């Protein structure tokens, strides 16, 4: 039951985060959404490692244990998410300074994907 609840939350978080990336125009909001979606994916892995009435995978803890492998993977994933986010935020600060906006559409206008035709 616990795992199901957490899985439902994880899927909800992924959906919510992606929705934020979709509808917001401000880059900081988009990054917040990505952060939440990434957190959802991490929770997804942890919840799938959980078993009914299981304790942490420590020696000396009796009874059934959770799967330690996904938890180990998730530790890595959390750090990677933080690293990418820090880089993204400093780019946002850079663009705010040079382009004076954090709005995606204005940024697209000032940096056209296509080179102007001669």
């Amino acid at each position, binding site marked *: 039951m616990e*795992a*199901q609840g957490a*899985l*439902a939350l994880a*899927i*909800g978080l*992924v*959906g919510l985060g*992606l*929705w934020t990336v*979709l*509808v917001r125009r401000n880059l900081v909001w988009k990054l917040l959404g990505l952060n939440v979606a990434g957190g959802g994916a991490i929770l*997804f892995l942890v919840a*799938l490692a959980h*078993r009914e009435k299981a304790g*942490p*995978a*420590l*020696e*000396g803890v009796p009874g059934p*244990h*959770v*799967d*330690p*492998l996904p*938890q*180990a*993977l998730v*530790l*890595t994933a*959390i*750090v*990677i998410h*933080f*690293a*990418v986010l*820090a*880089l993204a*935020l*400093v*780019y946002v*600060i*850079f663009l*705010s*300074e040079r382009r*004076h*906006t*954090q709005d995606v559409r204005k940024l697209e206008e000032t940096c056209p994907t296509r080179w102007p035709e001669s």
Partner: protein
Amino acid sequence: MKVLGGLGIVGLVVLLVWLTWSCFPLGELPPWEEATAAWGSKNAVAAIVLGARLWDTLFEVLVYALAIAGVALAAGSLGTKAVLPPLPETPLLHLAVALLLGPIGVFGLYVAVSGHLGPGGGFPAGALVGSGLLLLALARGTRGLTPGWAGGAWETGKFAVTGAILLLGLGVLVLGARGEPVLVGLNVLIALEVALGAWVVLREFAHVRGEM
């Protein structure tokens, strides 16, 4: 476009719900006592992160180190630097920070050193110490905290620690070193790297003055 995207998200959520629903009941788990015994650890997660899957962890350490290098590079190119002004001078804040910092440092060290015995490990420990440093910075202002220390010195130190972690990894992966001292050494080095990195990031973020 947004309607299409919304439909896409709804579709993905439905798909994920169907997938997870059909995953139950979850399968049996493999025993992990072997792994902990092989690495001299009581915590299976630590045995995997620092032992069996050390290869991944080395790249993770590099991800962290390079993200910090990237932040420093991008922030350095901004040019306009202004120092984060300290919060209003209140003796209470100074006192609180002075009182908190010692315990945070000790707790961080404990979390790092005991990471293979119970919950903990290098990354959370480093992040804890990094946050403690930030509190200090907020109370005293970044300039007051690092008189005469160029930003480059911190980064150099961080890369030296990263190199040490990689060399230790070489010892484990190629030469076959293992056991409790390896785990403790890795955890402490990682904690040091993360704390230094967190400090560099927070410093850069505090120094860069962006505009809206």
